[in-house]
């Protein structure tokens, strides 16, 4: 349970940083390529997991009237309100996936309850939700990638075989077994965070991050 406390603490810090820094989106996208430690750190902490249907972060912060209706509508109490340490984001709804992820209710009651349009009423199917994208951030600590039969994230994925699939490959270490690697598909993952919660490692090796923006080029494969 100390893990959960730590998580909360970390998130509070995150609110603080978020409030004071307000990073531009482009920087977040580029973050993976940058090597300057301070920027990476700020970047990693800039992302809030918002309820389903939330507009792009800037628009969301502008549109959300901090009424708390989505919090009341969530049957799993997954949605919570940012507290006083969140700066401009105070009173905005967010989700800590590791504690209680979005369960992706079929009828999306949080979106229905939103009076301001901060949660987009055009999102009526769970498949259309884009809260973020799950990423295996720590391959070395992923038990499945190490050849153990874990794949808990995969089996718990509400879009199993679509958002996460298993890519089997030969395990050269034993010579007779398969590494069953969970692979997240960005075009299908809704970012609910159920995988992040279910990961059996002390620190989840799969977490929901901001969905990277598509980058155009001329290649068609």
């Amino acid at each position: 349970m100390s893990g959960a406390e730590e998580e909360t603490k970390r998130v509070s810090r995150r609110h603080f940083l978020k409030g004071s820094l307000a990073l531009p989106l482009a920087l977040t996208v580029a973050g993976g390529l940058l090597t300057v430690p301070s920027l990476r750190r700020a970047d990693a902490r800039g992302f809030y997991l918002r309820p389903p249907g939330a507009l792009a972060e800037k628009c969301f912060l502008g549109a959300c009237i901090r009424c708390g209706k989505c919090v009341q509508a969530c049957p799993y109490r997954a949605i919570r309100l940012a507290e006083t340490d969140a700066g401009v984001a105070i009173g905005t709804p967010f989700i800590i996936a590791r504690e209680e992820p979005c369960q992706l209710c079929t009828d999306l009651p949080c979106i229905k309850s939103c009076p301001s349009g901060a949660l987009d009423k055009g999102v009526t199917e769970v498949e259309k939700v884009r809260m973020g994208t799950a990423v295996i951030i720590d391959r070395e600590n992923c038990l499945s990638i190490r050849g153990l039969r874990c794949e808990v994230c995969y089996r718990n994925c509400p879009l199993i075989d679509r958002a996460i699939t298993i890519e089997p490959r030969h395990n050269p270490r034993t010579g007779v077994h398969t590494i069953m690697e969970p692979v997240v598909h960005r075009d299908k993952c809704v970012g609910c965070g159920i995988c992040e919660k279910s990961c059996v490692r002390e620190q989840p090796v799969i977490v929901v991050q901001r969905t990277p923006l598509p980058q155009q080029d001329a290649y068609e494969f």
Partner: protein
Amino acid sequence: MALSRRDFLKASAAAAALAAATGGRLGATDVHAAEGGIRWGKAPCRFCGTGCGVLVGVKDGRIVATKGDPAAPVNKGLNCIKGYFLSKVLYGKDRLTKPLIRKGNKMVEASWDEAMDLIASKFRESIAKHGPDSVAMFGSGQWTVFEGYAAAKLFKAGIGTNNIEPNARFCMASAVTGFMTTFNSDEPMGCYDDLDLGDTYFLWGANMAECHPVLFSRLIDNRLKNPKVKIIDFGTRFTRTSQMADKYIRFNPQTDLALLNAIAHIIVRDRLYDENFIRKHVVFKKGKTNIGYGLEDKFKFADDPKPMTFDEYREFLKPYTPEYVSKLSGVPAKTIEEVARLYADKSRKVNSLWTMGFNQHVRGTWVNNLVYNVHLLTGKICKPGENPMSLTGQPSACGTAREVGTFTHRLPADMVVMNEEHRKKAAEIWGVPAEKIPAKPTYHATEMFRALDRGDIKVLWVQVTNPFQSAPNLSRYRKGARKGGDRFIIVSDIYPTRSTELADVVLPSASWVEKEGFFGNAERRGQQWFKMVEPPGEARNDLWQTMELARRLGHGNLFPYKYVEKEMFEEYRKFTLGQGKDLAPYEAYTKARGLRWPVVNGKETLWRYTEGYDPYVKAGEGVKFYKNKPNDYKAVIWARPYEPAAEAPDRQYPFWLCTGRVLEQWHTGTMTGRVPELKRAYGGAVCEIHPEDAKRLKVKHGDKVRVTSRRGSIVLTADLRGRGKAEKGNVFVAFFDENKMINELCIDAYCPISGEPDYKKCAVKLEKA
């Protein structure tokens, strides 16, 4: 104690040396770990029947780590997620550490002396008043060989009753009767090497991806290496296994009987069989039909096998045309034809693998027979890479329950109490008069709980299992247990369970490496381990508990050992020698990462009945079913018809209910449920429903749904997105959840030959709750 500790030290040194010799990387880890003060010892995993080897790291008297044993041939250093958390299963906060005695509605702490005195007095009283058949032991496929052997010896040779059964009756009994009726010897001819060597795998009622995770990983690797490999999954539910299979063939529940006969029909019709093999190695038989379902108390059945000719068998198969069976099973006739051809393809090495879908079946014995029929017709048996293989679900269902014979009718090494010669041999080894062992079997598991409910059994001791969550038609047997009167229930366990809550005495047990042990896995591999840590508080080994009762009942002479485990094993070993079930000397197992019996002259056997592998088969014999003396050393092809399930959906209860397991939790969840990570990964049972059925019922994913059978009712969360996809008209619920005991809904109909209940089929209705 001193001896076993010393041996443990020796063994861990050997383990480190072995690891160092076999793999540089892990060897280095070991050395590093040893520097950290961690001592590593070998043991088989505590969970399923795969028998993965693990290294257990001990520091300051506590298990601090486990890892897959790279030297273990079964898993070569890997584990599933349950095995990964082995170090935590013994350290739940609520471990039982003191004996408890019921005082009214309260359980009060007591000393071992008080508890054992009370138990002994209840046994004595009941035996004096109602005879030895009024006391019983319900044990487990998780018993170590020693625990099972001691219990069987005390009950059969000491107390003089056959009232001993393992929970394996609930999971493996049909596999046993399948083996016995077809080959006259229990357990498979093949081994896990077949997973590497074959190219065609039929899975029947087995969710290997979740229930035998490490073996499945091995099977898939075979396919990665060899593009010829095909995996065909026959099932009534789309599972993670189906997802990875080349083909998933959905069939209506119970129609596996018809499908296998249709496959045989095509093989015989088109003369795809191996005539030479049949002539040399096969006889044909038929048994009784319309054999009932065991729903009435004291149901009795005895088969009446009659020989038949190949032509008569051909006639028997006539009605099972692909067209007829297609209508019955829902499988297209064309698919049945294709499957039959794959089975018979001379260029293919064909294996069948099955688990509970076959065994927990009101015709479980028959369906086991029928899959052997196909392998016997095609001669695809007893060859490397070509075998039928029954997978097991408990770590020593084979080693203890089946090989030691802790069933009411069994004695060690394939012997039975009904046979005078067998009783004589057992009595001689046990040092008791032959008359001491009763010649009549009493109750198999379900009947045992019925007898407790009726009051025919007064005193019941439950060890290493949780029947008051795992029995079918649970409500009846839970109520029966607390009916009072002379009933007295003792439960030995490591945690409070749904069974300890019904007990009059709860005994705190030692588990796994808190004691010296021996398990036997599904491929006949016996694996030994030493005690590595002390059990917590006053918890004690079940073996000690049984011997302590024996001593107090005046049967202490049955256990005259100094180094109990070793001497007991050497005594048990005498049953196996010369029987084709030969075990190695105890010493050999302390060093090896398991050995597959028969072990003759220090050499294990990979393929039974096979020349060049099995020392009992002479040069030039090729294949010999040498255990089947009554059938002239031939295997039996059985004419077993399709017969319907005990209870099928109707207007009132329109859905099939199937129960089973998930990867993260094991059995009734008493161990895995204590691991927070596993609980987080899969916390509670849900009800898998087909989306179309759900729509009709106006149930959405995540809604509460009431599932009701004629026996019980339960509210569950509807799951429409899960890892398992229910077929239309079917629902599936896992049975591990102690707060949602689905077995209250299950019917206690069983296979009349094996006595194993059908947990896979009963009728339920669904309502939005």
